[in-house]
């Protein structure tokens, strides 16, 4: 590989990176400098070539231009990369106090007073001496000008408690002072008088008590039966199918709460303008969710609420719903204080108060023929939704729709329920219900294989779904699906079959005391095969009707406007790639406008692995239409020839603008006519398309310390066209690391409905020393039916689904135990050995 000397970068000297994108108001000045940096870096990337195995699909041409690097399938440097490595990217807590340019230098720092109990009635609030209370702004539910709820699916969650407390850490009031230390001290001097009520802290207990005939007020804590949502997927005739089976396999599977643990804690900055309109800047994934929530809390029309995303230090779903709460609190404080306000959580508050992955319990009963044919699946899937609905019904949908796995089975029933408890509300987390149900079915497949006396590979191969077959909802797979090829590739890359046999033998010898010094080590290798639906579930995309605008200013600069946020996954870079490819322009001619509800249309939330496939598709279509419009308006002379130069494009734009005034194209999501979904019956095309994958994990278990280490990891997937191989591999690697945490480290210690380990010392996420080598491979399948840009599908959530079951399947081989609960910490493994010892003798 050639290394280009560092000094020869003349163009970088022209201008230092600017940060004016944050302001949003002058987009035309914004990214030129960065783009120049990027273009140079892109050229460098091209001339240097990729050194990672994952770049192998990218043809590197030393003579290619930066334009080429930004084509779909290239790996140009992240657009905001230089700002980030210089520490110049501005996150919410970095915004200077005079950020607004209004001379209002002094901010009010807000802190949140929260409930110490899981359930109770707030009777009175007292303020003890020790701080100058006359200087402290106190915001209560009485200060809310509009609705006291955070608008989402059900509007059941208050912005500030006014009477009944439904979970620990529920926000009760906001205190503000210009000195953060004084505000913090004031928080400790608030005296709460609360009449405690008995809480419901277990999901099954809540389901049982909610539906018992003599249920009383302490039994029913939500709605009429403590059920946020329930649905049943039915295919074939499950009741009758049992008659035709030879072997029945049954098991219970459980997953725990998991904290998203983005490294930037949540935070918001807000001000209220003299006309009463509200502006909020902050760390968030979904600007229009926050927009809708604030419209309700302030009783304001859409144009009087402005939400701007600041650079966001990770989200993973954790910044999907809760930012609306913090934004409302901050704006209420700003309104009452009469000056800008800021609330930034510290780590402890962020951990204990914001949403986590829904804990789940799954019961699976399957029927098989001796030859391994899967005849019938009966699955009961339950989620703990916590105290308020938030997005639980949608999480439940995705979980239920993935619960049967990527297997062809004629008779399927999936019963899914999300229960209300008095736990803090659980919410969105990368994978959104699927990691829970995929864990269950993939562990179950290995248990079934053992019971049938077949290899777990043969059993999967026999039953993996193919194109033309149907999933549990009756969805016919019309795209090309080749799960067996993915599985074969993962097996080959990991050396699976040989290792599986060798570890069986070594573990057997070690158990007989023949392992010498290593008698306490056991090894295992495990697999998971799975799919992940791309984009919103069912008719979600149809209801959302996402919009994207692409327009040009007088200088010919192209602006891509969408509310899809850059949260580290690469939105800026990928939208640039898509626009650059279609418009045939270099990246610096394209500005991806910072999400700001006054500047961008609603392209939907940044969730569900939909940004590239759905929104990217809209960007592509808008760029195509923009080009067509130029050509049809008589600018074809300039643009007809393939490979026109940026100056020619600019001239064409200027000529168009002179004639028509503006050049702007807005595209809206058009549901594919052949995608049909029945919300009531849970029948039909649950997702427009799926990503498919086979993962292999190799582990070593130390029977002295009961530590499990992941030694090696192979992730093979088909995600359609890979738009940016480096970013895509980064998504998979990061997701696998989170999956390692989900499986082996990340355990929330609940004490009376409160998280007791809300610090990074005692809630443990994987460090650089814990992650295995992760080998990522994308297999591209020719699939003319795919609609994403260049045929791209979703990718972000996929790796969370298969990692934990692959690891637990490996641990099961290593230990010979039935391990169906995660996270599996050393003490859990030890307890499992103790139980097995009791059972065996």
């Amino acid at each position, binding site marked *: 590989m050639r290394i280009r000397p560092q000094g020869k970068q003349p163009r970088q000297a022209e201008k230092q990176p600017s940060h004016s994108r944050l302001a949003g108001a002058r987009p035309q000045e914004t990214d030129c400098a960065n783009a120049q940096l990027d273009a140079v870096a892109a050229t460098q990337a091209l001339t240097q070539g990729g050194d990672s195995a994952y770049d192998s699909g990218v043809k590197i041409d030393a003579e290619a231009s930066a334009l080429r690097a930004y084509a779909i399938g290239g790996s140009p440097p992240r657009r905001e990369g230089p700002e980030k490595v210089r520490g110049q990217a501005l996150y919410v807590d970095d915004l200077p106090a005079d950020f607004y340019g209004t001379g209002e230098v002094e901010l009010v720092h807000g802190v949140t007073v929260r409930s110490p109990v899981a359930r109770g009635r707030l009777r009175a609030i007292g303020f003890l001496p020790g701080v100058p209370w006359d200087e402290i702004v106190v915001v209560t539910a009485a200060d809310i000008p509009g609705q006291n709820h955070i608008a989402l699916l059900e509007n059941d969650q208050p912005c500030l408690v006014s009477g009944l407390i439904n979970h620990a850490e529920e926000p009760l009031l906001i205190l503000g002072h210009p000195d953060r230390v004084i505000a913090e001290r004031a928080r400790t001097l608030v005296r709460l008088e609360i009449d405690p009520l008995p809480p419901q802290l277990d999901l099954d207990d809540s389901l049982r008590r909610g539906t018992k005939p003599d249920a009383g007020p302490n039994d029913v804590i939500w709605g009429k039966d403590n059920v946020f949502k329930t649905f049943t997927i039915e295919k074939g005739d499950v009741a009758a199918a049992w008659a035709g089976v030879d072997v029945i396999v049954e098991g219970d599977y459980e997953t725990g709460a998991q904290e998203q643990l983005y490294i930037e804690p949540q935070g918001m900055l807000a001000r209220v303008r003299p006309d009463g309109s509200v502006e909020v800047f902050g760390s968030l994934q979904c600007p229009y969710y926050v927009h809708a929530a604030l419209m309700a809390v302030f009783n304001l029309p859409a144009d009087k609420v402005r939400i701007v995303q600041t650079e966001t230090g990770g989200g993973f779903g954790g910044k999907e719903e809760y930012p609306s709460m913090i934004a409302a609190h901050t704006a209420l404080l700003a309104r009452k204080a009469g000056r800008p306000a800021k609330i930034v959580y510290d780590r402890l508050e962020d951990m204990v108060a914001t949403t986590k992955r829904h804990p789940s319990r799954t019961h699976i009963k399957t029927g098989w023929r001796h030859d391994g044919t899967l005849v019938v699946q009966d699955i009961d899937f339950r989620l703990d939704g916590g105290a308020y609905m938030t997005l639980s019904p949608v999480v439940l949908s995705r979980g239920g729709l993935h619960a049967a796995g990527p297997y062809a089975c004629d008779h399927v029933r999936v019963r899914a329920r999300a229960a209300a408890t008095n736990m803090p509300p659980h919410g969105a987390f990368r994978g959104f219900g699927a990691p829970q149900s995929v864990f269950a079915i993939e562990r179950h497949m290995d248990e079934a294989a053992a019971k049938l006396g077949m290899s777990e590979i043969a059993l999967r191969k026999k039953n993996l779904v193919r194109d033309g077959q149907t999933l549990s909802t009756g969805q016919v797979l019309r795209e090309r699906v080749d799960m067996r090829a993915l599985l074969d590739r993962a097996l080959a890359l990991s050396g699976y079959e040989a290792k599986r046999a060798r570890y069986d033998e070594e573990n057997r010898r070690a158990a007989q005391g023949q392992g010498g010094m290593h008698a306490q080590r056991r090894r295992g290798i495990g697999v998971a095969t799975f799919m992940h639906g791309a984009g919103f579930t069912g008719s979600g995309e149809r209801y959302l009707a996402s919009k994207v605008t692409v327009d040009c200013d007088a200088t010919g600069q192209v602006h891509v406007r969408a509310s899809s946020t850059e949260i580290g996954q690469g939105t800026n870079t990928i939208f640039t790639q898509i626009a650059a490819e279609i418009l045939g322009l270099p990246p610096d001619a394209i500005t991806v406008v910072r999400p700001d509800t006054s500047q961008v249309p609603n392209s939907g939330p940044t969730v569900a692995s939909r940004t590239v496939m759905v929104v990217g598709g809209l960007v592509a279509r808008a760029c195509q239409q923009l080009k067509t419009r130029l050509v049809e308006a008589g600018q074809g002379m300039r643009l007809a020839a393939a490979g026109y130069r940026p100056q020619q494009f600019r001239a064409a734009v200027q000529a168009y603008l002179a004639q028509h005034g503006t050049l702007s194209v807005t595209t809206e999501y058009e549901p594919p006519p052949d995608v049909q979904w029945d919300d009531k019956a849970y029948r039909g095309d649950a997702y427009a398309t799926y990503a498919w994958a086979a993962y292999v994990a190799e582990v070593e278990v130390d029977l002295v310390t009961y530590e499990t280490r992941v030694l090696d990891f192979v992730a093979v997937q088909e995600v359609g066209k890979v738009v940016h191989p480096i970013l895509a591999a980064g998504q998979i690697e990061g997701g696998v690391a989170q999956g390692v945490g989900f499986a082996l480290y990340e355990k929330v210690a609940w004490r009376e409905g409160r998280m007791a380990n809300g*610090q990074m010392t005692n809630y443990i996420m994987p460090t650089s020393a814990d992650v295995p080598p992760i080998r990522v491979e994308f297999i591209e399948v020719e699939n003319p039916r795919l609609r994403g840009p260049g045929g791209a599908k979703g990718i972000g959530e996929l790796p969370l689904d298969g990692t934990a079951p692959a690891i637990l399947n490996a641990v099961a081989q290593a230990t010979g135990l039935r391990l169906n609960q995660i996270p599996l910490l050393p003490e859990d493994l030890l307890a499992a050995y103790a139980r097995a010892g009791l059972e065996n003798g």
Partner: protein
Amino acid sequence: MSTHGHDSHHATTTSSGTFTRPLIELRLRVNGIDTVCVVHPMARLLDVLRESLHLSGTKEGCGEGECGACAVLLNGELVCSCLVPALQAMGTEVTTIEGVAPSLATLDRVQQAFVDCGGAQCGICTPGMILAAKALLTRCPQPTEAEIREGLAGNLCRCTGYTKIFSSVLRACQADGATTEGGER
């Protein structure tokens, strides 16, 4: 021996409930520039950098030395600035992420490698991670992957799974080799 100010440094709660926070003058050298600022004596170095000196590239991820997002070099040593009280930084030499790039026009080889290799995703751990990598490469110019894993183990990243960070650090070493050969640095 020096005592910093006795009574004048007490934050006090008076009978009328007034809570005040007096200040001291802190002198230190930051990114090669002699700096004086007036801060609360127990302010953390992190707050001094971010609030008094407006060097917001140093991030706060946990405030208790776990995540490494606030890492800076203090007299050349990698430390968590959230665990260093201002007074402890008196007279020291501090390097933050803002002092890493050789100029406004060029990036340091480690920074460049993070851009090229996908070592930064959301970017919040990146400043601390780059300083940890710098400290590692000073101590150990050609680290093995095991040494990189160990050297960065005090810096948490939730996005990348660390893999692209390892390749960024390895790339930075290679870049060093190349530029040394070319005699440019």
